[in-house]
């Protein structure tokens, strides 16, 4: 029976190829626009580190002065050196690290190769274990090496490829600005997206090309990337600002393995702030936060407004396309009132007429899915050409592919319901009479 309906549906569709084409195109355009925008939203709001994102937390405290405090003010996004080091010393999490982005001119040792700028990450020792960064060769530095301000560096796979042709470079040296660093490790490809651990250098920025100890970077006065904001009226030189208790520029991440540990850490932050108030450093009553990775991305609204707006517009557009298809199908089905009347008179049930026409709608949906997928491939290729840092991620994955097919079928079936319903209510006798 199904095959017969399918055959009828195909015949029905072929009878008026222009109208059928219009419907497929309308659904296809709507699906194409929606899938393109949803795919972008999907890759931009993804989990940057699925293996650990639920155990990594970003603590905030509020060291600013009380004079300009408005109730409800959010605490600053970053920590001062003093607070970061205090939290680090107390070490209440399984692992923790304070960090900042930076950059330096790398001077290759080979003659005739021009120097170039590399992006760096300055951090305390735990960063590699904290973020599960995989090593190809060697290892990271220890807390003692950080404390001793040793000039050691961990290279990314890409930089190691560029500098040493990909071989094990542990023990070799590189020159950053006017300082020499000893390579102690090389990491494998590691590119969390979004760049969750430091949103100030770009929410979808590439991972840094080398890592080095935080204390070393401050000591050598190496270039810093990202934001620094200072409060209070004390004037300080850039070097003094870095180790001060009034300039906020460090990101801090802590690993807490259970909900209990999180609750304990929240209490610890409150106690810490209270203590800082007692000794006269903090002026505001406790105004701290503890966000998990996904909470932090949500709080910082990393998904650009533009992208969300595009999704809404695309969905509105899809609805218009569906309404439009309902109208066209209605016209198409009812144009065959005669057929339906004859079939009904020859004994076809309402149900079988309804099924037949819904099947026809479903076929339009399949056609719409094909057109829609092609259009979304074009759309995503266009997105990848955009001058935005997330452009490279705009690719269709399996879940988005399935969604496109599902969305298209759902859209066409919804569009087909009303026309199929109207078609199956056509009375047999009346139609025969007029012919």
């Amino acid at each position, binding site marked *: 029976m199904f095959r017969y309906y399918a055959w009828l549906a195909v015949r029905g569709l072929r009878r008026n190829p222009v*109208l059928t084409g*219009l419907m497929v195109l*309308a659904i296809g*355009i*709507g699906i194409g*626009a929606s899938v393109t925008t949803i795919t972008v939203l999907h890759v931009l709001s993804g989990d940057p580190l699925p293996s650990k994102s639920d155990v990594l937390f970003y603590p905030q405290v509020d060291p600013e002065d009380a*004079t*300009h405090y408005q109730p409800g003010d959010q605490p600053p996004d970053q920590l001062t050196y003093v607070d970061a080091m205090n939290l680090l010393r107390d070490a209440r999490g399984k692992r923790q690290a304070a960090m900042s982005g930076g950059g330096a*001119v790398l*001077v290759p040792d080979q003659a005739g190769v*021009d*120097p*170039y*700028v590399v992006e760096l990450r300055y951090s305390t020792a735990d960063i590699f274990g904290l973020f599960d960064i995989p090593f190809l060769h060697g290892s990271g530095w220890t807390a003692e090496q950080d404390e001793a301000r040793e000039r050691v560096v961990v290279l990314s796979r890409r930089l190691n490829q560029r500098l040493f042709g990909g071989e094990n470079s542990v023990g070799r040296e590189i020159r950053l*600005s*006017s300082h020499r660093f000893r390579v102690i490790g090389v990491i494998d490809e590691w590119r969390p997206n979004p760049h969750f651990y430091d949103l100030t250098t770009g929410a979808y920025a590439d991972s840094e090309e080398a890592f080095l100890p935080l204390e070393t970077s401050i000591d050598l*006065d190496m270039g810093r990337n990202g934001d620094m904001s200072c409060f209070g*009226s004390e*004037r*300080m*030189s*850039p070097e*003094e600002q870095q180790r001060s208790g009034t300039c906020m520029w460090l990101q801090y991440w802590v690993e807490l393995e259970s909900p209990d540990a999180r609750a304990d850490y929240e209490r610890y932050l409150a106690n810490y702030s209270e203590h800082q108030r007692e000794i006269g450093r903090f002026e505001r009553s406790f105004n701290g936060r503890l966000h998990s990775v996904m909470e932090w991305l949500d709080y910082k609204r990393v998904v650009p*407004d*533009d992208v*969300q*707006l*595009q999704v*809404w*517009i*695309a969905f*509105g*557009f899809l*609805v*218009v*396309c569906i*309404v*439009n298809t*309902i*109208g*066209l199908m*209605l*016209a*198409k089905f*009812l*144009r065959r009132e005669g057929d339906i009347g004859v079939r009904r008179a020859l004994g076809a049930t309402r149900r079988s007429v309804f099924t037949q026409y819904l099947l026809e709608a479903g076929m339009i949906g399949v056609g719409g899915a094909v057109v829609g997928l092609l259009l979304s491939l074009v759309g995503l290729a266009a997105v990848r050409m*955009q*001058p*935005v840092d997330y452009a490279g991620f705009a690719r269709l994955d399996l879940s988005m592919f399935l969604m496109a097919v599902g969305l298209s079928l759902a859209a066409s079936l919804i569009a087909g319901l*009303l026309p199929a319903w*109207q078609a199956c209510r056509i009375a047999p006798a009346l139609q025969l009479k007029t012919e």
Partner: protein
Amino acid sequence: MEIQPILKSLRRQKTAAILIAFEIALACAIICNTLFVIVARMDRMQIDSGIAETELLRIRTATLDDPVDKPLRTAEDLAALQAVPGVVDVAAVQQVPFGNSSWNSGVAVERGAPPVVGATNYFDNGNLVKTLGLKLVAGRDFQPEEYINFQDLFSTDETFVGMAIITQALADRLWPGEPALGKAFYTDTDPIRVIGIVDTLIRPSFGDPGDAPMSVIYPVRHAPGLEYLLRVRGAEPDAVLKQAEVALRDVHPGRLILHASTFVEMRERFFRGDRVMAMLLIGVIVALLIVTALGIVGLASFWVQRRRRQIGVRRALGATRGAILRYFQLENFLIVTAGVAAGMFSAYGVNAWLMQHYELERLPLYYLPVAAVSLWVLGQLSVLQPALRAMRVPPALATRA
């Protein structure tokens, strides 16, 4: 033309009429809001930077010098750049409009008071106002002896900036309705006197165009991260840029040129995201109009086909061809009007929702008649072909059945 019979026959095919009206309403709501977003983007792209963009070049370099040598190096570089043919003015500053880094401070009008507004700081290494081509509307430029060294700001407590040139927009924000010249503002404990006011100068990067011209220029030499600005006249900017790069390499061979571009390019790059977004939205509007028009054509053709006999009867009873044509046009007008009426409310509903979730302003009222008129025109154009077909139905058709 009687409306009554049209309404009557519309009532008989409610579903299709409601579908078209609904589609028009949705299209109206989407088009109004999308157009509004596009216009906001266009406004942003039109912003006056205050600088002589077509005559300006920017070069950012990096060297591996000891920081102590920097002031000397800067002076040598500037002299070399000034000597490039076609260059009329050179300056060095630590940030530029359409650039990617900026240094900002909260500005208060009384010591210790909360800041009125966040402004950006340009540290003028000398000759900045003239090189950028800023227009002084009050006061004067800095005198050579008024400049201080960036490092001195931190070595002694006695040294502080003390004076600045600000933009008219910042002056109006700090002291609304009062002359700003000679008044003092605060970014820390020391007062800073306004000695000059420029027409406008935008901050390096901005979201809301209203916040863009909040800039302060300080007479501070040798700030970290200086980049060079070249004003060119009577020469091809791109050619001058190449010569300037060569000149800089001659001064110091191991130099890294990080950025070298004209401000025309920088503006283009800065607004590329906005332009792409605007184009995309225009594309959506066009696609939406096409889909809506196709829907109207499809349904109207269907109606015409269904009513062929009815039309034949009317023609046989004496209705003119024009009357048939007008019948379908008026019918379409009524449906679109219903759709537009509903669309206006939903346009405001959508706008209110967008305002809540995104940084969007209230939709100006004049968008509504514009959208209404364009949808009416669209409806009339779409219905024309089916209506013409209806008009050509011969009266004889009535007798044939």
